[in-house]
C-alpha cells in the first residue's frame, strides 16, 4: 500500500465570496456551505463559526474534532465506512489534508441512552484548558448543529456526524487540483531483515456494552462500533481515517487525533532505520465477561506474533474496565516473547487506588503521560468571555443531571493524554 499525503497548511480562515485555499488562507463562502448542510432536512439549524487559539471562548457539546482530509486519487474515501461512506479499503492513492485547522462538531445529540453516552466534552481556546489539549492550538471551525428530535437517536447521530464529515470533504476538496506545498509518501518498504518488527496495538472502547446497540455512534473502525475480534490494519488506513468517529468524555480520542496519531507517525519515521513497522492491530474493549476480555488479548497477541513482531506499542482510549483488555494484551504479548510498551495515563493520587486498575507483573515497560494536569493541584479553568454550542454543560463527568452554565469557571480540569500529544514535561509532572 502506498499513500501520498499532500499537506496544505492553513494559517488563517476567512469568510469570503468563494471557497478556496490560497497560500495558507482558507476562504469559506459561508452561504453555499451552510445551504448544503441545510439540504438535509434533519438539520434544523446550523452555524459555522471560526474560533482562533487564544480567544477567550468555550465550545460545548463537542462530539468530535475532524481534520479535513479527502481522497483525490485512488480507491476509497477518507473516514471510510462511517455514516454511510464507502467501505472500500483506504490507505492508498493520494490524500490531501488541510493542516492547522479542524472542524469541531457540536450538536444537541447525545451518543446513546446510557452511561457515558452523554455530551460532556468542551474545548477552551484560552487558558489552561487550551494548553492541555491539542485543539487549543488549531484554528477551530465550529460547526454548531441543531438536529430534529423527531427521528431516532441513531439517525440523529448519523445526521450530525454526517454533516461534519460532509463539511470536511467540501473544504478539503478545494485542494483537489492544486499542488501541495509539501507531501509525504507513506509506504512500508522492505527493509533490513535484522531490524526488529514492531506493531502498534490500539485499543478502542466499544459503546456496545453501555448502549445495548450494535450500531451506536462512537469511535469506529470502518464505521463499525460493535465489539469485534481484533482488526489487522495497515498504518495507511489509520492515516486515511479508517479509525474515526465521535465519542464522549472530555478526553476521548477524536477523529483528528487518529489521523495525526503520533505513535503511527513515529513508527513510520523509524521504519527501515531502527525498526521494521510491521502493522497495526485494533482491538475493541469493554467486553462484559472476563473470558471475552482475555480472548481478545490472546488473539491480539497471536496476530502480533503472526506478523513476526518482537515488539509492540500499546495505547488505549478509555479507562474503567476497558483497561483489563489492555493489560491482558500486554501480558499475552510478553508471554509470547513480544517486548511490549504500554503508553498510559495514571489515576490521580486522590483516587486512592493503584495507579493502574490491574497492575500485572508482565507490564515492565510503561510510559506514563501523567495524571492529566501539570501538578497535583486542580487545574482551574477561568470563565470564557464567549460560549458556542449550548448554554449549559455537565458539572462533572459522571453526573449528567448536574448542569452549570457553559461559561462557568471550572475548578477542575483533567485531560487524558492517550497518545502522547501533551505538552507537559517530566519535570512538571
Amino acid at each position, binding site marked *: 500500500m502506498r499513500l501520498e499525503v499532500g499537506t496544505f497548511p492553513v494559517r488563517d480562515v476567512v469568510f469570503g465570496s468563494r471557497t478556496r485555499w490560497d497560500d495558507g488562507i482558507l476562504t469559506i463562502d459561508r452561504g453555499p456551505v451552510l445551504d448544503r448542510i441545510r439540504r438535509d432536512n434533519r438539520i434544523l439549524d446550523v452555524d459555522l463559526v471560526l474560533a482562533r487559539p487564544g480567544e477567550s471562548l468555550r465550545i460545548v457539546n463537542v462530539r468530535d474534532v475532524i481534520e479535513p482530509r479527502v481522497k483525490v486519487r485512488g480507491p476509497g474515501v477518507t473516514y471510510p465506512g462511517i455514516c454511510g461512506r464507502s467501505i472500500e479499503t483506504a490507505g492508498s492513492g493520494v490524500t490531501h489534508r488541510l493542516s492547522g485547522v479542524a472542524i469541531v462538531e457540536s450538536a444537541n445529540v447525545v451518543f446513546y441512552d446510557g452511561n457515558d453516552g452523554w455530551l460532556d466534552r468542551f474545548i477552551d481556546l484560552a487558558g489552561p484548558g487550551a494548553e492541555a489539549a491539542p485543539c487549543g492550538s488549531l484554528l477551530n471551525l465550529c460547526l454548531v448543529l441543531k438536529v430534529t428530535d423527531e427521528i431516532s437517536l441513531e439517525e440523529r447521530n448519523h445526521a450530525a456526524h454526517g454533516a461534519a464529515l460532509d463539511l470536511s470533504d467540501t473544504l478539503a476538496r478545494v485542494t483537489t487540483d492544486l499542488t501541495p506545498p509539501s507531501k509525504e509518501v507513506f509506504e512500508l518498504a522492505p527493509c533490513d531483515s535484522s531490524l526488529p518488527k514492531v506493531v502498534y496495538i490500539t485499543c478502542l472502547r466499544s459503546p456496545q*456494552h453501555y448502549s445495548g446497540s450494535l450500531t451506536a455512534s462512537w469511535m469506529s473502525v470502518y464505521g463499525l462500533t460493535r465489539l469485534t475480534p481484533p482488526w489487522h490494519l495497515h498504518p495507511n488506513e489509520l492515516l486515511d481515517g479508517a479509525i474515526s468517529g465521535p465519542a464522549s468524555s472530555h478526553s476521548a480520542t477524536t477523529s483528528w487525533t487518529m489521523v495525526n496519531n503520533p505513535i503511527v507517525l513515529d513508527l513510520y519515521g523509524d521504519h527501515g532505520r531502527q525498526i521494521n513497522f510491521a502493522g497495526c492491530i485494533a482491538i475493541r474493549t469493554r467486553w*462484559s*465477561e*472476563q473470558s471475552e*476480555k*482475555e480472548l481478545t488479548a490472546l488473539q491480539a497477541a497471536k496476530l502480533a506474533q503472526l506478523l513476526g513482531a518482537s515488539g509492540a506499542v500499546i495505547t488505549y482510549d478509555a479507562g474503567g*474496565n476497558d483497561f*483489563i483488555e489492555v493489560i*491482558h494484551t500486554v501480558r499475552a504479548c510478553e508471554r509470547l516473547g513480544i517486548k511490549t510498551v504500554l503508553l498510559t495515563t495514571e489515576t490521580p493520587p486522590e483516587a486512592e487506588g*493503584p495507579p493502574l*486498575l*490491574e*497492575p*500485572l507483573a508482565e507490564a515492565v515497560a510503561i510510559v506514563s503521560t501523567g495524571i492529566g494536569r501539570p501538578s497535583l493541584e486542580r487545574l482551574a479553568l477561568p470563565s470564557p468571555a464567549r460560549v458556542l454550542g449550548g448554554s449549559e454543560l455537565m458539572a462533572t463527568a459522571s453526573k449528567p443531571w448536574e448542569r452549570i452554565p457553559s461559561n462557568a469557571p471550572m475548578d477542575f480540569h483533567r485531560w487524558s493524554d492517550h497518545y502522547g500529544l501533551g505538552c507537559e514535561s517530566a519535570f512538571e509532572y
Partner: protein
Amino acid sequence: MPIAMISALYSVPVSLGVNRVIKGARIEHVCGNPALGSERDRAYRLQVVRTALQSLTRAISTPLLLDPTQEAT
C-alpha cells in the same frame, strides 16, 4: 473479618490481593444468567451465593479464586 468478593471481572480483585474471589457471570448479571431460564437461573444464582458463603468458612493460606460451577454447594 473474611470477605468474599463475587466479580464478573475477577482478574482485577485477584491481582489486587483479595483473598476470596468468586467468579461472577457477566457485568450485566454478575450473580445469575437469565439465558438459562428462570428455574436453572435460580439454581445457578444459589450456586454462586453458596460458593461465596462457604468460602468464608474456609481457612486459607493462599488467595482463592473459585468457579461456582466447579464447586460442590
